[in-house]
């Protein structure tokens, strides 16, 4: 695992504080979407299918900061759309890092080099570029529906590393992924010099244009077990080892849908990053007035049946790490041995 100690400490003390305060439902990562516009059009992405007037809109920095304040999560992930297309991205990141939020800027990296050369960002332990990489050149370009993107992203990664930024990758795995090719991909990312990798199976959005190439539970477990069997010590994952064990079928978790709440121009998305069943006006409204019993595996909701996505289950894993001795011990063992 490659999460820096300072970040782990920030998350651990936050979780303990929430528990001591008796808070039952608390967020870990705010998914902040300042815009839906993107310079790619990946077939699996349900985030960019909006009419033109919506794609032209974006949140103000002030609205973003209010949401961050309201929610209080120690980590802010900025997915998209493509956040590097957000006109105020430099100021937003500066304001967030000044508030000591750990920011994960999730980008396809097409514009990364340009933004770095323009001096939009300053290196900070609080800022990580989480670059979207769905596999080796062939697989990634296929996944983002455009050739040449892998090479552009790899150049962006190298430039960011050269300038002293933290860089990780985020990979979504779809039906047909080859464990062998993925192992080669892990090597390639480590060769590039990234700090760590995050993995997640894809989810079939009810509004996404493509429903055919997502992974159901058994296939997910098989793929992750084969991909992560005898992991190389040099592979670093920027995520909870217990979550990886869950993906491999070694643990059974229930979803924590409020763990990664999502805020965008429509409001606070109910119930989670993946499902859009409506929007709440405030974070408090989201937490207090969402019918949580309708979601998660136990609920029997067919939309949740095969979901194993990080935004629902990683919070469960992190919660286990910091609230039970067994979870803590298992995390330490996996971290020390490098074996999820």
């Amino acid at each position: 695992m490659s999460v820096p100690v300072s970040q782990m400490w920030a998350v651990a003390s936050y979780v303990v504080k929430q528990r001591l305060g008796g808070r039952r439902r608390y967020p870990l990562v705010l998914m902040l979407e300042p815009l839906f516009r993107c310079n790619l059009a990946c077939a699996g992405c349900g985030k960019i299918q909006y009419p033109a007037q919506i794609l032209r809109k974006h949140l103000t920095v002030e609205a973003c900061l209010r949401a961050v304040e309201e929610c209080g999560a120690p980590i802010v992930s900025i997915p998209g759309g493509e956040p590097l297309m957000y006109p105020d991205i430099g100021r937003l990141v500066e304001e967030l890092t000044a508030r000591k939020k750990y920011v994960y800027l999730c980008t396809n990296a097409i514009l990364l080099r340009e933004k770095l050369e323009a001096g939009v960002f300053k290196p900070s332990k609080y800022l990580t570029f989480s670059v979207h990489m769905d596999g080796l050149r062939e697989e990634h370009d296929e996944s983002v529906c455009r050739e040449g993107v892998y090479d552009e992203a790899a150049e962006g990664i190298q430039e960011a590393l050269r300038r002293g930024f933290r860089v990780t990758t985020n990979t979504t795995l779809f039906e047909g992924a080859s464990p062998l090719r993925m192992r080669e991909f892990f090597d390639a990312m480590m060769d590039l010099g990234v700090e760590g990798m995050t993995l997640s199976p894809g989810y079939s959005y009810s509004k996404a244009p493509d429903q055919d190439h997502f992974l159901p539970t058994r296939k997910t477990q098989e793929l992750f077990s084969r991909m992560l069997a005898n992991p190389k010590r040099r592979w670093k994952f920027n995520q909870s080892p217990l979550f990886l064990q869950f993906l491999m079928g070694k643990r059974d978790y229930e979803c924590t849908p409020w763990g990664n709440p999502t805020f965008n121009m429509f409001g606070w998305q109910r119930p989670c990053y993946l499902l859009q069943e409506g929007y709440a006006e405030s974070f408090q409204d989201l937490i207090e007035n969402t019918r949580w019993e309708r979601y998660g595996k136990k609920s029997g909701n067919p939309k949740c049946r095969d979901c194993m996505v990080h935004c629902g289950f990683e919070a469960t894993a992190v919660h286990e790490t910091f609230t039970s001795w067994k979870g803590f011990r298992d995390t330490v063992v996996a971290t020390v041995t490098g074996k999820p």
Partner: protein
Amino acid sequence: MIEGSEKSLQGWEPEVGSDLSLEQVIDLAFDYRGNTTVVKTDGTELSGYLFNRNPDVPQPFIQIFDASGAGPFTIPYSEIRTIKFTGRDTAAGNSYAAWRKRREEEKTGGATPSGELPA
């Protein structure tokens, strides 16, 4: 909800009646990835993107950004006669399979223009 198919509701102008409730039409409009036109009981219309609906409150409502992006405007269910699916369905025809097909055609010199992306 027409899931996983290339079928689209684009152009549909539903009549609310005994076979189709207003709640069903609103749910379909909420799931639709394009602009719709809300026809109100007073005969006025509002076109735009319907991004929210809440049937679980004492006065159920929808929320919409109009065609220029202004809003959000909140309209109670009680003031809605029907909703027409007037805008282009931005999700239709953009499946992974469709992209693969276009790519294959490009490679084999088919009719699809080069560089075309699922918009």
